């Protein structure tokens, strides 16, 4: 079995968010980029664990994006992925990414496509589902545990208030939630090895582009906090009722 892990690149969680070009573009100046945590900590690490357990022959990572992401892809290789691909185009939205991935997978079949449940930048959480729909593969969303049993994926799928144990024959698209694996730190050997692992750049496939970010605006800050005496919690209840009107 071969596993494909699509990875997104996102601003570091502590990055200062700002916009340029009249608030129509994210300002990447001085921003540190990382692999989207859901893709890295859960999807990629679990894929590597499955390979280490002898359940997968190969783990490939793929990124839809421009050359500035190559360092991010190398990090995935340093963590242990065998090879990597970059589809050379702007990842304008989840639909664009999914269409590119679907074309790639039609030409290069993988039995398991394992990706994070959402990016922490655009928070769409739909790329995996669109991809599964385009390929008409079965889709397990929000898996917090994943095992492979012969030709079958066995997963815990998170639902409201709990999880369900599900099974599905391969091939399948799975989106990874917290809990599937634990974050790893690349070691020196991995970082050295990553330098010579394959990173193949693939020209973009023709796709539909249907959405556009027209305008950004920063969320407004809150006005100053009103402090209430810990011995007068009734005051808080009163304010929540009469001023905030939330109870």
């Amino acid at each position, binding site marked *: 079995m071969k596993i494909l892990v699509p990875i997104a690149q996102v601003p570091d*969680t*502590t990055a200062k968010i700002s*916009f340029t070009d009249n608030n129509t573009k994210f300002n990447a100046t001085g921003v540190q980029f990382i692999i989207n945590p*859901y893709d890295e900590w859960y999807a990629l690490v679990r894929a590597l664990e499955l390979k280490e357990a002898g359940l997968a022959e190969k783990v490939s990572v793929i990124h839809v994006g421009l050359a500035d992401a190559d360092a991010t892809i190398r990090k995935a290789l340093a963590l242990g992925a065998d090879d990597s691909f970059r589809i050379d185009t702007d990842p304008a939205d989840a639909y664009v990414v999914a269409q590119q991935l679907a074309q790639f997978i039609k030409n290069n079949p993988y039995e398991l496509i394992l990706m994070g449940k959402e990016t*922490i*930048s*655009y*928070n*769409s*959480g*739909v790329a995996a*589902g*669109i*991809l*599964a*729909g*385009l390929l008409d593969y079965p*889709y*397990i*969303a*929000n898996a917090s545990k994943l095992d492979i049993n012969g030709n079958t994926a066995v997963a815990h*799928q*998170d639902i*409201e*208030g*709990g999880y*369900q*144990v*599900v*099974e*599905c024959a391969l091939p*399948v698209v799975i989106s990874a939630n*917290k*809990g599937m694996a634990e974050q790893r730190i690349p070691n020196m050997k991995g970082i050295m090895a990553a330098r010579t692992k394959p990173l193949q750049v693939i020209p973009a496939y023709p796709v*539909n582009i*249907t*959405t*556009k*970010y*027209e*305008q*950004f*605006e*920063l*969320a407004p*800050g*809150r006005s100053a*906090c*009103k*402090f*209430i005496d*810990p011995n007068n919690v*009734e005051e*808080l*209840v009163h304010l*929540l*009722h009469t001023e*905030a009107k*939330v*109870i």
Partner: protein
Amino acid sequence: MSVLVFADASNNGKVKKASFEATYFASQIAQQTGGKCVVLSLKADDDSKQKLAHAGAQKIINITNDIPAISDVSVAAKILLKYTQTEGIKDVVLPNDIQGKAVASYLAGLLNTGIAPAVTSLVSINGSTYVFKRNVFSGKAYAQISISSDKKVITLLPNSLQIQWNTQNIAEIKDITENDNYTPRVIVKSVEKTTTGGNIPLPEAEIVVSGGRGLKGPENWGIIEDLAKALGAATACSRPVADAHWRPHHEHVGQTGIAIRPNLYIAIGISGAIQHLAGVSGSKTIVVINTDKEAPFFKAADYGIVGDAFEVVPKLTEAIKKFKASQQ
């Protein structure tokens, strides 16, 4: 053009709040595009069907039989696809909850069309270009996103709008049985519930009581649950609390957990790290209870109490109970 909403009530016949919101939102789109708001519901009871009409549905197609295969997202999406064809639908609206997001995205793939995910409001409709507002960068910014595909799939973030109920509205209701044979590929073997508190799904909850590492251990969560119960709230937690398995991980809110925007968020023993704030800053009102007056969370709060949770929270619970009793 007509707009289709999917409302799954197969659990107990009750349509969820997030689906009423989606219906109301779809009715606004339908109004502006001169179409109809059609709801495809699954096992909705009479009360829910009436409420769907009051939320704006003009036609309700209610599937009355069990379709076990529908727990497979791809089956749910295929059933929806069928009704988009038979009802002449251009736009589909689903709530952006766990199930809605999965079904909507799969449907967008089947239709090979664009999707506007997790929108919070409609900005404008101009021909076949719709502009929506949505949160990006984990609540640190808002964006206007335009979508111009011929067919559109839209998911609405729960708790984003106030439904204007119209009790005069009457819908055409069709109870049907869905007899097509669907075989699930993803098979559910068992369902495990891990919620200990009430039954309010976190993303839909209007009030959320949340605990952090300041509570010292899972054995101390009684005070959080008591307060949540008094308020009719859902419970949540910070990431290290879920990481340490003090609480189930689906309670983890923040940038790498779930993002919520309740009317009231009460943070107890949580420092207010940037990644935590990212998931809760959309809340309308934030109350912070923390022993450390320098805790960064106070900068993001509307009301703060500097004090020990173990003393303050039980007192607050009592005060809430008294207030609730006085309201009756």
